[in-house]
């Protein structure tokens, strides 16, 4: 019994973190640290990868694009999962902060998907001879890009905040299911051209036998991208919270 009691107190404390005022508090303290760490990891990772790693035997210097493509792809996929979780918590507990986290994640996720697509296409160009190849990995990122756009457009299409939050959350939940379905449909649809992705990460980016010299800078730039994502997310969520409060105040002014 004691265990469950302790667990629930953690759980409540966790919810306490998500209360708007408390969130604004700890996020403002955490933000500067994250920004500094993100800047550090990003710069060292990219500079190290760009300047101090040898060319790959087969691909020549294009392998340097790896330091952009893989981290961006990683953030793009996890961004959508975060939106799924944020929407779920909104629908279950009406947590304003969690739905605003989902809302703030979308543009960042979309930008990261765009970067993954751009760098993927450019990276593939020398080997495949054309800029855009209907390769399963790139195509499923394109599908993910469409899902992001749908989510963002739905937000802007509905005036009332709570209705928009509810409907976009439902779209995110359903969209996530279909994103997985589309992923496997795309894999089924074509025989993969992609060179097998670079690092094993649970969300399906498979292992690539790459030597250590490429690996360390890659880890750093991945950390950099994730921290950048977190920083932008906190800024975005704080903006959304403030925007919501602003709208409340303006509504109240009209009513008086």
């Amino acid at each position, binding site marked *: 019994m004691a265990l469950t009691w302790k667990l629930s107190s953690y759980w409540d404390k966790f919810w306490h973190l998500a209360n708007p005022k408390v969130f604004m508090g700890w996020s403002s303290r955490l933000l500067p640290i994250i920004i500094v760490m993100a800047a550090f990891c990003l710069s060292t990772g990219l500079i190290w990868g760009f*300047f101090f790693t040898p060319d790959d035997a087969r691909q020549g210097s294009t392998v*340097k694009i790896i330091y*952009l493509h893989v981290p961006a792809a990683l953030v793009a996929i996890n961004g959508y999962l975060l939106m799924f979780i944020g929407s779920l918590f909104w629908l279950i507990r009406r947590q304003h902060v969690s739905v605003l986290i989902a809302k703030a994640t979308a543009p960042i996720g979309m*930008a990261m998907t765009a970067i993954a697509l*751009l760098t993927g296409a450019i990276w593939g160009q*020398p080997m495949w001879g054309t800029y855009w190849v209907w390769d399963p990995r790139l195509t499923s990122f394109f599908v993910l890009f469409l899902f992001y756009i749908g989510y963002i457009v739905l937000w802007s299409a509905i005036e009332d905040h709570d209705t928009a939050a509810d409907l976009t959350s439902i779209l995110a939940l359903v969209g996530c299911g279909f994103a997985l379905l589309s992923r496997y449909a795309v894999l089924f649809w074509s025989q993969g051209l992609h060179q097998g992705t670079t690092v094993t990460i649970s969300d399906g980016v498979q292992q690539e036998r790459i030597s250590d010299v490429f690996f360390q800078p890659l880890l750093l730039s991945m950390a950099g991208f994730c921290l950048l994502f977190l920083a932008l997310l906190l*800024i975005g969520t704080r903006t959304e919270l403030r925007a919501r409060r602003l709208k409340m105040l303006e509504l109240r002014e009209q009513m008086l």
Partner: protein
Amino acid sequence: MMPDLGNYAVEVISAYGLSSIVLGFLIFTSVVRNARVKQRLADAEARKDA
């Protein structure tokens, strides 16, 4: 200092260039929007208390 990028220099540079443009735009918009909303909120709060 510039590493010899061999015949794929254009690709690598354009990849980094494009990505930094997208990232730059993303960072710029989120920071600017944050500041603008912060400002308008401060005005609204001031109006409320006045």
